């Protein structure tokens, strides 16, 4: 077995240290070692986006990033999206629009949509669909998801 590596990162605003084997993905460490099981494993090969997290503010598939490579980086997962004051507007709108059924893809969609709205507060429908092309949903048919994101954008730009 290869030697474990000590990694220091910031996850959802808190400094987190962990030991990992070089072959462990970020997804594995988040779920299995850090108990951050909100991030889901779907395909594990970069097709579905269920494991989306933000790495240095950019959305990535955590199944295709080695945990050892996150040294010194800022990571944001679905667990960091809500605040003590309540749900994030995206989460609220996903509920109101019933933009989920089984829910496996939802954390990935919310994390990716949050990255979009932070960069572009008022995206067109086309832009939303393009931006979320790396996230698959096998239940909803996407329309409800797109509407939830549009609605969240409207709420957030009023706030």
């Amino acid at each position, binding site marked *: 077995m290869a030697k474990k590596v000590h990694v220091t990162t910031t996850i959802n605003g808190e400094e987190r240290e962990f030991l990992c084997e*070089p072959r462990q993905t970020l997804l594995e460490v988040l779920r299995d070692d850090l108990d951050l099981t909100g991030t889901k494993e779907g395909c*594990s*090969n*970069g097709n579905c986006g269920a494991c989306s997290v933000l790495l240095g503010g950019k959305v990535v*598939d955590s199944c*295709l990033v080695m945990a050892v490579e996150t040294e010194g980086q800022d990571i944001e997962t679905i667990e960091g999206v809500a605040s003590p004051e309540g749900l994030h507007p995206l989460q609220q709108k996903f509920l109101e629009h019933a933009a989920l059924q089984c829910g496996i893809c939802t954390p990935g969609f919310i994390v*990716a949509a949050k990255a979009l709205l932070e960069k572009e507060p008022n995206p067109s429908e086309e832009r939303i*669909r393009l931006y979320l092309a*790396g996230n698959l949903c096998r239940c909803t048919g996407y329309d409800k998801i797109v509407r939830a994101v549009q609605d969240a954008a409207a709420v957030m730009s009023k706030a």
Partner: protein
Amino acid sequence: MNAFEYVNPSNLQDVPQLLSQKRDRKSVVMAGGIDLLGELKDNLITPDRLVNIKALDLRYIRHSKEGVRMGATTTLSDLVSDEEIVKTYTALAEAAESVASLQIRNVGTIGGNLCQRPRCWYFRGEEFHCLKKGGHKCFAVDGENKYHAVMGGGPCHIVHPSDTAPALIALHATIKIHGPNGERTVPAADFFLLPMENLYQETVVHSNEVVTEIFIPKPKAGTKSTYLKFKEKGSMDFALAAAAVALRVEGGVCKDVQVVLGGVAPKPWQADASALVGQVVTEERVVAFANTVLKDAAPLRDNAFKVTLSKTMIKRGVLALV
């Protein structure tokens, strides 16, 4: 996935030594790691060491009068968001943007996009000991070959999956490679190999070498370029057929044209477009040219559609720039 060591050199000079291969110790280069993790998860490779090259300061885009230099670990997203690349080297920006998803473009690099391994499901499938893996048979010949090569195939029928490669060739890029004997520079057009030249690797990069930089000379004034890609799944997919086109028209007459196809051959397929030079570019002439490019196509049982599709990509790509 087997266990391996992860090394993080900060000096390029150390890389060839770290990559030197011994019979019982295999090392591989890691850039973004997107394709590499796929290979590791599929047990396509079982290295003892990953040599990360992201600490080598190879993430840069430098514009000058001569052209643009891009470090090998520049991400595809970096390329897409560089205004000068979008404006002057449009085919490259469009090709980079057509790759996979945002999640993947945020991590995947230009160097990795060129050095990724083919997607052939027999090659990727652990249960198939195909020609490319040292076996005795290309399973695509009698198998499910909808996504395989229609030109340049044999004895193995992979297609090269890179989108940026056809664009780079159309734009006359060169690729810098660092190895034990120092640096060498190879035209992008000579970077890729057909299976009949080398069955086991798709590029001229040896296992103890690493791609460090890509250079594109500034196109002559008036040059326009584009990358058209046809995907089975519109939101995100590899190319069924794609065309990178660079065209310069002066006074209504074509002065220079480059056409390179993706997704249809084991390497980016460079067409001889000299017949269009000196001509007024009309739909009729472009269709005749596209027919010539595909005249020697040798489709397998399920992929003759790629011949038609390639002609359409050429036609649309060239006419879009006139």
